[in-house]
Each structure stands twice: as structure tokens, then as C-alpha cells.
């Protein structure tokens, strides 16, 4: 099958080539003498590379924040849309827009709205008297961290909302009616009916979302380029910089190989969940 051949050639072979490269000091500036350096790259990363650990730390905060926020927003929107309302497909289309537009367009339009001098948000907030000085959404480190998480949530919550909505529609309506007769309020219905029945969907979608967020490069890169002062760098951006700006391809491969460890764990959990939900 041609599909198999292209997958092997373009995905499997490079993967192993990448693993092999991570044991060398391949450098774009001196292509002639590539040396085999054993596990030196990995030892360097794990023991003396402070940058790597700092970046890894923020990567986890970023992934965790994005997934949790988009789950909460997604669930809220899904439960609203699950009511018997007209024009559901119009709302669905409008909510899906962030998910389908290119990251470049998303990042630029956000940069325009968040701009500190002419941005709509800053000027509106100042006019309302809520703030005195414009907020530096991108330039101030703590603020920038929040901005990238918000932006990433914005891009990924539509997926959550639609998947959860599909899950909600599978829950029989009589359950809620029965609960209402028994005197259960909104909160009790959520905790005792919705959450347990949504469990499989919740697990699978959050795992998928974590993997996608972990792998994502464009959302942050196009917004802040990892700045200010590299505080919003995540592993994928660090890899990109190391490879194509510092030209240390071998070392970059070693960094991205450490991503594989995380991926394998997540993939294992995902497969297990898929199996149990199929039964």
C-alpha cells in the first residue's frame, strides 16, 4: 500500500534518524565532522542545562492551564448548547471559528486587539476607568505567561465544547427529570449525573488536548516568540531555536527525544482508555 510506504519513509525513518542524531554533535555550521558523542547530550540536558528545566516547568504549567481552562469553558458552553435552543448550528459554527483559522491570523488579530497603544481592549478598559495605564499583555513577563495560556485556551476550547456537547447529547434526558423530581438542584445534577456519565469523554478529550498542547509550537511562537526574556518558551520552541538559530541540530534532537518519553506515557494512557471505552 502506498500509504504505508509514505508513512514509513516520512515518519518512521526520520523518527529513528532523529534518535540517532541525538547521540551526535551534528551542527549546521560544521557539517563535515559529525562525531558520535554517546549520551553526552542527554547528560548535559538533564544535569547542567538550567534553561531546559525552566522551560520544562513552564511547559507543564502551560499545558495544565490550557487543558483545565478549556475544559471548564468547553463544559459550560456545551451545557448551554445542550438546552433545547434554536439555531444551535449557527452558534456551533461561530464558536468553531477560533479552532479552524490559521494560527498566524489568530496571533496577529490578538496582537492587534491587545496592543498597548491602539489596542481595542486597552483603550476600552481605560475609557471605562478600570485601569490607569495600558496593560502590557505581551511585554510584561507574568502578563505574557497569562496571555499565552489564554490565547491557547481560546484556540482549543471549541474542540472541547463540541466533544463534550456530543457526550452530553448521549445522556438520557429522563435522568435529569428524575433528579429534578427528587429535588436535586443544578449543582447536584452536575456532580452526580453529568460528571460521572461524561467520564470517558472527559478522559479521552483531556488526554488528546494535553498531547496537542504539549506538541504545539505555533500558538506561542507567533504571539511572543518565547519572549519576553524567554519566559514563555516551551519545549518545542526551545528545540526550534536550538536547531535553526543556534545550529546545534544534534543537541536539539536530544531535547525533542526527551519529549518522546512524555508522549509514550500519554499515548499508553490514551490507548488504554480507548480500549475500555470500546468495551
Amino acid at each position: 500500500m502506498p500509504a504505508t510506504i509514505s508513512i514509513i519513509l516520512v515518519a518512521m525513518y526520520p523518527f529513528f534518524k532523529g534518535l540517532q542524531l541525538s547521540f551526535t554533535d551534528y551542527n549546521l555550521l560544521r557539517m563535515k565532522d559529525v562525531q558520535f558523542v554517546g549520551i553526552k547530550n542527554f547528560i548535559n540536558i538533564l544535569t547542567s542545562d538550567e534553561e531546559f528545566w525552566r522551560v520544562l516547568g513552564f511547559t507543564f504549567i502551560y499545558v495544565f492551564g490550557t487543558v483545565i481552562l478549556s475544559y471548564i469553558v468547553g463544559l459550560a458552553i456545551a451545557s448551554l448548547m445542550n438546552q433545547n435552543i434554536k439555531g444551535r448550528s449557527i452558534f456551533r459554527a461561530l464558536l468553531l471559528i477560533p479552532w479552524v483559522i490559521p494560527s498566524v491570523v489568530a496571533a496577529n488579530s490578538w496582537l492587534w486587539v491587545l496592543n498597548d497603544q491602539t489596542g481595542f481592549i486597552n483603550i476600552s478598559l481605560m475609557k471605562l476607568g478600570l485601569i490607569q495605564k495600558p496593560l502590557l499583555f505581551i511585554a510584561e513577563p507574568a502578563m505574557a505567561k497569562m496571555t499565552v495560556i489564554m490565547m491557547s485556551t481560546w484556540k482549543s476550547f471549541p474542540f472541547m465544547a463540541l466533544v463534550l456537547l456530543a457526550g452530553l447529547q448521549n445522556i438520557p434526558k429522563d435522568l435529569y427529570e428524575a433528579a429534578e423530581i427528587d429535588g436535586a438542584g443544578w449543582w447536584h445534577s452536575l456532580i452526580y449525573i453529568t460528571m460521572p456519565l461524561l467520564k470517558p469523554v472527559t478522559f479521552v478529550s483531556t488526554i488528546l488536548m494535553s498531547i496537542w498542547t504539549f506538541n504545539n509550537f505555533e500558538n506561542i511562537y507567533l504571539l511572543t516568540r518565547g519572549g519576553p526574556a524567554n519566559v514563555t518558551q516551551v519545549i518545542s520552541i526551545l528545540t526550534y531555536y536550538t536547531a535553526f538559530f543556534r545550529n546545534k541540530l544534534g543537541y536539539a534532537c536530544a531535547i525533542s527525544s526527551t519529549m518522546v518519553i512524555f508522549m509514550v506515557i500519554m499515548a499508553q494512557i490514551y490507548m488504554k482508555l480507548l480500549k475500555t471505552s470500546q468495551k
Partner: protein
Amino acid sequence: MKRKKLNKFFIYLILVIFVLIINLPLISMVGTSLKAEDEVLSTSNLFPTKISWVNYQTVLGKTPFLTYIKNSLIITISVTIFSTMLAVLAGYALSRFTHKIRVFGLYSRLLIVLQMFPIILLLIPLFIIFKSIGILNTRLPAILIYITITLPFSIWLMTGFFDGIPVELEEAGTIDGCSQFQSFYLLVLPVSSPGVAAIAIFSFIFCWNEYLLASIFLKQDNLRTLPIGLQTFIQQYTSAWGSLMAASTLTIIPTIIFLIFMQKYIIQGLTAGAVKG
């Protein structure tokens, strides 16, 4: 009864406000793109006082934007066609012959893992490989990689889709004298057109939007696709927000058209993964 009506009103209200907030950057984008040049930076109103098409004229007339559209179309269309064709054939094989050939079960599990692979991990080895073959400055690397990246998801979706079509359909075809390929082509394929539409749209949107790979493999002026082109606009004309917004608006038009007319298929593909498993 009255309370229920009030409740419903609030649901609509919340949804409408939410949709507006969510789409605020895009509303502002379209608004800005229609402003005249002096109005872009001087007011912060979302909409122009007078609609002006000057930004669109600049983008289409004075910048290589049309080249970017051409590049994007070449790559996106060729990837979509190849990837869809391969995925339909592979998905059919996986769906119908998994019970006979055991390797296929393992193969479809591999596809799920591949779908979650970080692109950045493959980027560096691929760069080195294509550099050594010497086809770095052509469209070929990008097309090959895009096909491969879209394939796992497409095959997987098609397999699920074919699983839902009863085998009796082909058996009936065989009785009526169709060959295996004929019964696939004449009977199964027409029934499965929604699935084919879903994977084609997904491939299209993916290629149309992709940035990371394009930024490495399609760096050259004459090869740039729309996302890369837009990014260069920002670096070159830092203060020309009006034209940038006009270019961005033009870029998302095909995607939005798909979203409006093909919403059913997009949602089908989107939720198939997580809900059905």
C-alpha cells in the same frame, strides 16, 4: 412557564455575548481591514466610519499576496487529492481485511500513535534528509510531509466509516456480477461520501493553515504559502496594520466558507475521535 421562557432568554443572551467576545479579535480584524489608512491608528473603534477598500487594493496590487495564494492552492489541493485517495483505499483495506490479516490490527494502532506525534520531532531529521537529497528548495518536501501527516487521521476516520457499512452490500454486488473493485467503486464509495468529504476538508484546512513546517521547507520567496507570507508582511511593514488585516481576512475566507456549508462533516470528523474512540 414564564420562568422557563426567561431562562431561555438568558441562555441566548449568554451565548450571544460569549460568541461576540470569542470573535472579538476577528471582528476587529475585519473592521480594521475596511478602514482608510489614516483611520487605522487614529481611532480604536471596531468599525470604520466609512468603508474603504484601499487596504485590499494595496494587498492585491502591491504585494506578492497573489503568489502566496497560488502557492497555497497548489500545495493544499495536491495534498488533499493524494491524501484522500490513499486514505480511502487504506481505510477500506483496514476495515474489510483486519480479521483475515492480523498485522492490520497492529497497524491501525500504530496509526493512532502517529497521529499524536510532535511534528517538531520529525522536523530536524527531515530537514537533514531532504537537504542531503538536494530537493530542499522545491515544493516536494512539504507536499510529501503534509500527505504523511494527514494520512493517519484520515485512514483512521475512513476505517471507522467503512466499519459502519454492512459487508452485505458488497456481497450483493458480487452476486450481481461485480468484481471486488467494482463493488467497492460503485456501491461502497457513493455511500461513504460524507466520510470522504470530512477527511478532504480536514486535509485542506490543515495544509491551508500549517505554519511550522512551511517556515522551514517553504522559506523561499517564490514558494511561500499564505501563513508564511502573512508572517513576512508583519516583519516587513510593521505599521501597516490595515493591509495586514486585509490579507488575514482574505486568508480565512475559504476556511469560513467550509465552516458554513460543510459544518456537519467537520463536526463529524472532530467528535468521531474522542467520543466513539
